[in-house]
């Protein structure tokens, strides 16, 4: 019995020294020991080898299914007017069969939507064009060769038995240090020393958490980093986005107060630096939210606010509609584009499929998380532009930088239905086409009948 305690004690001491010397100290100073970089390079070599094996395997079995890229069907790019005009040109002059063949256009469009629609696609994980040796992405690759399977098996062992415990331990260390550290800093009186210490604590803990996910983050254009008193706006893929961004600077978070562990975390964080947490009832009242945020931004000494205007997690192939509420607050907007490299692990959180815990487990058993973060030059609202147009402008800048598709769809469609006003627009367009044509046709018919009589 005593031996057991002794062993446990030694392991704990060993673990703490490893953490402090190899992880915490470098994290405090923002240094890296280079272990993750080497790991990623080794991984890339292995994955390249695996891809070549799969290619060879597929050439031998031509009937094996090939995974698809983001589109399944070829869509003709023309507008409704162009297609209608083509339809009519190819039709005989006689016979009032205009509606009969116009139906074909809508029929085809309808079938296209049934086979593949843009919105649902954004809320399911993107298919990889190759296999990254994770079971969960192997939907289309079947048994190819013995060597590949052995490597895959080794991969499973390494990920679940070596990396996972290490990462879990690291992440819990990081979070507990965050709670303790911010609590301690919270006791200090308001001063610049307190702010500096709070920043240090926050940065260290987020860096530890990032190492807990084997995250490699490449920051671009650091000169455009968000300044105090501004609002930082980014596309949303996963809750880990917060960790990714906070590794390089301190932000004031905005969100709902939760209970339990997250609630404790939130309470202690707000003691050391001003985050903005709302009660659930307050969230419903848009004016209260806007007022509080405006207040925060107006005090130019406070940390920049971090907001995700899409309102929900999207699968990182596109950017969905930005809610204009964040853009009504005023102040300078600092857009940030975040793009995850899917080869090492899919970071998208499909909240309808996985809950938070299983999502985190999946993250910790992926190979790594490789992210590119681009800081974009600050933008402000221009004269004569309303909040919605400004939001769209910022959205296209982010989509362009991150190489993502710029979609006008609302992320909320994940859960609810299309607005009626949108439905009617297409019908109006079609009606105008018909009325235009028909006016001529009707007068022609009338004059013909008069001639007959």
């Amino acid at each position: 019995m005593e031996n057991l305690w002794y062993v446990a004690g030694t392991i704990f001491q060993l673990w703490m020294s490893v953490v402090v010397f190899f992880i915490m100290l470098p994290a405090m100073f923002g240094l890296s020991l280079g272990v993750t970089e080497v790991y990623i390079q080794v991984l890339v070599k292995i994955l390249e080898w695996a891809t070549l094996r799969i290619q060879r395997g597929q050439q031998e079995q031509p009937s094996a299914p090939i995974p698809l890229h983001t589109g399944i069907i070829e869509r003709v790019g023309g507008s409704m007017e162009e297609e209608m005009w083509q339809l009519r040109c190819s039709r005989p002059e006689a016979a009032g069969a205009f509606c009969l063949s116009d139906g074909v256009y809508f029929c085809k469009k309808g079938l296209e939507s049934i086979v593949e629609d843009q919105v649902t696609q954004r809320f399911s994980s993107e298919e990889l064009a190759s296999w990254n040796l994770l079971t969960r992405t192997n939907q289309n690759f079947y048994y190819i060769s013995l060597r590949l399977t052995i490597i895959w098996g080794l991969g499973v062992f390494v990920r679940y038995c070596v990396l996972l415990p290490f990462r879990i331990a690291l992440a819990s260390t990081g979070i507990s240090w965050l709670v303790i550290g911010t609590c301690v800093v919270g006791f200090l009186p308001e001063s610049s020393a307190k702010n500096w210490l709070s920043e240090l604590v926050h940065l260290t803990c987020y860096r530890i958490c990032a190492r807990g996910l084997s995250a490699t983050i490449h920051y671009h254009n650091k000169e455009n980093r968000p300044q105090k008193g501004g609002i930082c706006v980014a596309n949303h893929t996963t809750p880990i986005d917060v960790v990714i961004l906070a590794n390089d600077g301190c932000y004031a978070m905005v969100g709902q107060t939760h209970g339990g562990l997250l609630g404790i975390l939130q309470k202690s964080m707000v003691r050391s630096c001003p985050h903005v947490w709302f009660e659930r009832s307050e969230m419903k009242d848009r004016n209260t939210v806007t007022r509080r945020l405006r207040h925060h931004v107006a005090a130019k000494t406070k940390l920049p606010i971090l907001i995700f205007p899409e309102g929900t997690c999207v699968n990182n192939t596109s950017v969905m509609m930005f809610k204009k509420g964040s853009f009504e607050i005023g102040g300078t907007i600092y857009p940030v584009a975040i793009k995850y490299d899917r080869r090492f692990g899919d970071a998208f959180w499909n909240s309808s499929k996985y809950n938070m815990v299983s999502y985190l487990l999946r993250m910790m058993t992926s190979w790594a998380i490789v992210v590119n973060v681009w800081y974009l030059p600050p933008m402000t609202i221009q004269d004569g532009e309303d909040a919605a147009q400004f939001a769209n402008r910022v959205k296209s800048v982010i989509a362009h930088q991150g190489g993502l598709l710029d979609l006008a769809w609302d992320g909320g469609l994940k859960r609810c239905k299309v607005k009626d006003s949108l439905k009617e627009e297409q019908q109006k367009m079609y009606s105008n086409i018909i009325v235009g044509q028909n006016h001529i046709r009707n007068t022609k018919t009338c004059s013909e009948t008069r001639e007959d009589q």
Partner: protein
Amino acid sequence: MGALKSTPAPIEHHDLSEKTGFSLRQIRVLHKRFKQLSEGDDVLRREDFLGISSLKYNPIRKEIIEAFFNRRNFSPSCEGRANEIDFEEFLVVMSHFKPPCSKMTDEQRKNIRREKLKFIFNMHDSDGDGLITLEDYRHVVEELLSRSGALGKETSRAIADAAMFEVARTVGHRDPDEFYEGITFEHFLKLLSNFDIESRMNIRFLKTDVIPGCRLG
């Protein structure tokens, strides 16, 4: 574990491929889509189609959805409507939209054309009696035009009546008061004889390349 077993395409997929003319790859894709729409079920119901956002844009969405449940589209001898469809029936309806193959005999081309036109005919013939009557036609025009409120009901009715009158004239009814039962399928074929439906009514699947290499970007 999917990684280790070698699972060839299920036998049913081979049969379906022969029956509908889709390739095995296309059937796999459509099967995935079927499962996505039905949320894992083996049958699709009308409500499952209502979840597709871009379909809501479409003025004749009801007719399109009904086309999937119309037994006449499964095989020419069937009648009536179904309340649920399985994957085979889904594929059969989809196969009406297959693009034309370059190597096809004239006979096959004619058949395919006839099938596509029958699909459109069935879509317009909402009561299923084999004739597009004035009522059926008015209904379709209303759906296409006046739902948005841009055109009034009377206007769309007038358009439908005028068009129907023109069709009736081609059959030989010169008097607007003479009763015209409706457009039969044969007449429908004749009306649209010059209409290039093969190229207008098809959905092409994208070809995909073999996997690109894995490189650090």
